[in-house]
């Protein structure tokens, strides 16, 4: 199967590969897996005090489309609020990368990785707020 040029670009020069320390307060970590192919994706966001995503990193073990999807969303989430990041839909990822139908699940994985990272960050902060109030 031929990959699109954009997939190849992200695959050959992935943006923002790596990790943040998951225990840091400003970090949200999302981990998800694609059951159809066994790919695993870890996406982390660093959120500033104003609630804006300042930076993002990913590690993906999977095919070129999964790597490209996660690389792309680390670029897209930067500068966005958490709610704006949650608005990123898999269809937009698939369209941007011209993913063929058999690779749509890679874009679903990337969307769900953002959701999981935002949820992790919010859970962490709900706890911090609760501790301060106590």
């Amino acid at each position: 199967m031929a990959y699109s040029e954009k997939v190849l670009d992200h695959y050959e020069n992935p943006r923002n590969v790596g990790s943040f320390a998951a225990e840091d307060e400003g970090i949200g970590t999302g981990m998800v897996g694609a059951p159809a192919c066994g790919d695993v994706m870890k996406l982390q966001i660093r959120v500033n005090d104003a609630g804006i995503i300042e930076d993002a990193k990913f590690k993906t073990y999977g095919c070129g489309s999964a790597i490209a999807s996660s690389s792309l969303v680390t670029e897209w989430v930067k500068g966005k609020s958490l709610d704006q990041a949650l608005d990123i839909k898999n269809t937009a990822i698939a369209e941007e990368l011209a993913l063929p139908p058999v690779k749509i699940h890679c874009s679903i994985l990337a969307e769900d990785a953002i959701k999981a990272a935002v949820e992790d960050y919010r859970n962490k902060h709900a706890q911090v707020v609760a501790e301060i109030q106590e």
Partner: protein
Amino acid sequence: MLPDFKSTHFELFGLPERFELDGVQLDAAYRHLQVQVHPDKFAHLPESEQRVSMQWSTRVNEAYQALKTPLNRAIYLLTLHGINALAPENTQLPMAFLMQQIEWREGIQSARSAGDVSALQAIERDLNRADKMTAAQLAEELDVHKQWSAAAQTARQLKFIDKIREEIDDSYAALDM
């Protein structure tokens, strides 16, 4: 006789509808059916009957593939209960499980680039242990408690374990060069 597409794969082989299956019995039932429907036996017959025998042969092969490995068997059993365990929206897995996945994959990558066969073997041993535990859990959930959605989650984990096994096998092959 036209291929029977209504019966389940278990019924086709005359086996009980269970996850824990006697592999010897399955192999014997498969060979028995395959001999009966093999296209070579129909080579002298009219084309329409050859075609039917081909369809039968395909049907029997598909059924065998679906029951042969524990993963395929679990997935097939779940489809009989209306569950598509590997549907793409099921991306949520236990955090500890995914951490272990990433750890294994990183371990395989570094063992492979360092040419470290014993490190690969250590991961393989861990994997075999996880594989056995997961299969035992599936047997409980599918055959004893009939907990289909819990079993679907466990089947997904088995899929990831299979994927790691492929990567280990690939790495062994690459290091042998």
